[in-house]
């Protein structure tokens, strides 16, 4: 063993390394040229045929946690997988309210109180070439009710029993859903992606656990999942056998960039075409650079959950609600990109009630707290590190509560640990999070006794009873009344500090045309083209 040998080894390593490094430089350049025009914006031109072969690159702020649509819970999951899978119905937004329209279903009819007939469209293909049949629907819905946390939540009643008693297949395209009792939100809930339809074989193959191979990610949607690198990107390709309007985009690339600056600089420099998770503070900067900013009222209700078992006195919970100056928060912290919570459900939901506001009233808050003997108590406030805005909000809340005599200690936690502490162990005093329901009924089921999303463990039999009645009430106006009643009860019982509904803010380069946004942070890419 001498020096020359050592140098030879190093030389070989260098040679190997050089080849590797040069390779990683040359790949991923793609077919684009970036041309700078005299303004400060850069425009991206395509070398090859415009539009048909376009690649749309989207920056996401969080990672996908699963490739199985029935296990999807996060915004990123639905965003990406929502291009691959479709449900029987679809949620659309007309600018002020949500609507639930038939999608894979051609027509449907309520046969009686507990039976609904559905007829599928003809000629819908899965991405593996198979035709969509009612058998696939049955298997998918059953799998969703069995495995999916959200699916179960959507399709169970107040006592936790599955709403659907059976799915009867009539022929390849027709089936009947039999309910145990009338369930009025059925249609809305069948529009949720957690009840998306997948091929029967795949549903059966993964009857006991999540899909864990990209080969088995097969849906009826306009894009196919080509590859997924955990923590960095997901690549989708247009499905040319799609039954609906074929998108102009050929390739979809989702880049996972948790760092806010990363997303901003990516869109400013043209590395991505669309950036989600844009902070309201950035809007002016982006617009000044020629980036378009889209904004839509959101469904995400940012709240501070109050543990009802530890703070059972409703006066205290109401006091906490009076202690917060929501308009200041919305105006200053969110730069106006939020709506002060006037109810428990976002105004985009048909039937969302506007209730008597908890105005900012420090003296009233103090009064209530004194009355309840709660002055000088110390509480811990849990917040997940996943959202920096939530962490900032925690500090603002801390200050407001201090002003009414409640000392709050902030504990920030890693996201999964936070989920466990709040939703499984229920070991917290206060916790900040923001549920994003897809329908009004679903938003209210959070507050059912023992519901899995019921972090504060709020329990009011009146609420449970009202929700049950709503599900069974076939008369629409009566139902709306009941909806209002139940919202009022929950609002007044204050199992949480109702803060605001976060607007969905998305940035897109001016070359992106035809983009639409849904209030639950979902992009609608049907009509998008690069022009």
């Amino acid at each position: 063993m001498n020096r020359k040998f050592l140098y030879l080894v190093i030389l070989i390593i260098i040679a190997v390394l050089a080849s590797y490094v040069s390779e990683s430089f040359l790949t991923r350049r793609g077919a684009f040229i970036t041309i700078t025009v005299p303004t400060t914006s850069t425009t991206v031109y395509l070398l090859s045929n415009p539009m048909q072969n376009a690649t749309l690159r989207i920056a996401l702020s969080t990672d996908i946690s699963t490739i199985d649509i029935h296990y999807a819970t996060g915004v990123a999951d639905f965003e990406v997988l929502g291009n691959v899978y479709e449900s029987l119905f679809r949620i659309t937004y007309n600018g002020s309210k949500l609507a639930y329209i038939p999608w894979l279903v051609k027509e449907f009819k309520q046969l009686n109180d507990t039976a609904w007939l559905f007829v599928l469209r003809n000629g819908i293909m899965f991405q593996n070439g198979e035709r969509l049949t009612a058998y696939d629907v049955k298997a998918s819905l059953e799998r969703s009710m069995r495995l999916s946390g959200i699916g179960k939540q959507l399709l169970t009643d107040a006592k936790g029993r599955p709403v659907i008693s059976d799915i009867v297949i009539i022929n390849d395209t027709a089936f009947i859903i039999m309910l145990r009792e009338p369930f009025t939100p059925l249609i809305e809930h069948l529009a949720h992606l957690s009840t998306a339809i997948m091929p029967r074989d795949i549903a059966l193959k993964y009857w006991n656990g999540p899909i864990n191979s990209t080969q088995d990610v097969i849906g009826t949607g306009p894009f196919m999942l080509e590859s997924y690198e955990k923590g960095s990107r997901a690549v989708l390709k247009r499905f040319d056998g799609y039954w609906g309007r074929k998108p102009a985009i050929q390739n979809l690339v989702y880049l996972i960039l948790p760092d806010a600056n990363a997303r901003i600089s990516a869109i400013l420099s043209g590395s991505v075409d669309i950036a989600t998770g844009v902070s309201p503070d950035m809007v002016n900067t982006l617009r000044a650079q020629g980036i378009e900013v889209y904004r839509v009222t959101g469904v995400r209700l940012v709240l501070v959950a109050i543990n009802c078992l530890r703070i059972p006195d409703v006066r205290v919970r109401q006091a906490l609600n009076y202690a917060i100056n929501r308009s200041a928060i919305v105006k200053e912290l969110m730069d106006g990109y939020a709506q002060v919570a006037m109810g428990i459900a976002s105004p985009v939901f048909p039937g969302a009630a506007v209730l008597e506001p908890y105005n900012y009233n420090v003296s009233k808050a103090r009064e209530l707290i004194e009355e309840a003997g709660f002055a000088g108590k110390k509480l811990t406030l849990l917040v997940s590190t996943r959202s920096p805005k939530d962490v900032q909000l925690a500090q603002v809340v801390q200050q407001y509560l201090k002003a009414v005599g409640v000392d709050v200690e902030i504990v920030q936690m890693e996201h999964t640990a936070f989920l466990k502490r709040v939703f499984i162990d229920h070991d917290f005093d206060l916790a900040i999070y923001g549920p994003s329901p897809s329908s009004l009924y679903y938003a209210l089921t959070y507050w059912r006794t023992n519901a899995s999303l019921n972090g504060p463990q709020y329990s009011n039999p009146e609420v449970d009873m009202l929700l049950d009645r709503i599900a069974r009430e076939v008369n629409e106006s009566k139902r709306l009344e009941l909806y209002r009643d139940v919202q009022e009860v929950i609002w007044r019982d204050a199992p949480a500090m109702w803060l605001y509904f976060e607007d969905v803010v998305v940035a897109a380069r001016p070359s992106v045309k035809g983009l639409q946004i849904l209030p639950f942070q979902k992009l609608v890419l049907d009509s998008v083209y690069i022009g």
Partner: protein
Amino acid sequence: MRGLVAKISLGIIFAEIFLALLANFIAPYPYYRVDLENRLRPPSPTHILGTDPLGRDVFSRLVYALRISFAVAILSLAVALLIGTALGMVSAILGSVTDAVLSWIFDVVYAMPGFFIAIAILLIIGSGVMGTAAAISLTLTPIFFRLSRSAARGVLVKQYVEVAKALGASTLRIALNYVGRELMAVVIPAAVYMLSDAIALEATLGVVGLGVNPPTPSLGNMISEYKDYVFVAPWLVATPIAIIALTIASLNILAKELDKKLNAFLEAA
């Protein structure tokens, strides 16, 4: 010229320690006072370094952050130094089984990524000043252990120790007299270098979100929070970065000077 640089470094460190100790009196505003209507203001006469995304005075936060960062760094360093050096010395003197076991333990700690040590501490102690200090201590202790162990072993094989043993000196006396002296010469310069590492570690932990809890400011978590605002308020993130760079650079320069002086002293002795 060399002397001037060292003097400037010393000045910087003293100034920072001064600010840190008297943070309470020097800070014009409470570091936690949120003022939503005055967010992201540039430096002005009322706020020397401007305001942060929650309207808090950046200068006030900075002096408190200095206090926290220094406190955490010095505390962790002290603990790591004491425990690591003591165990290293014990390991070298007692030898055989004790040495094998201790070396094994520290090799394992050394092989663990800092991220995991931080997570483990988070689990046991929880987040906050104590947890952060514990995590940094744990990361630095193996280094002191190794250092003192090899230095002690170096001394123990020297002739004069054999002579002392033959003359009947107890193990303790040997430890304190001969080994201890040698260790000080090795460990103290290392410690000064390590101080800048401790500060750097605290900043790293803060940047990745594993440090102290809000609203407590630390240099690391200020950077982590303010970097998202670089497009609207670039001065925000520049300050803590500049302070960290200055601090670490000054500490490094001082460490080098101390090292030189100590070497010269020992050579003369």
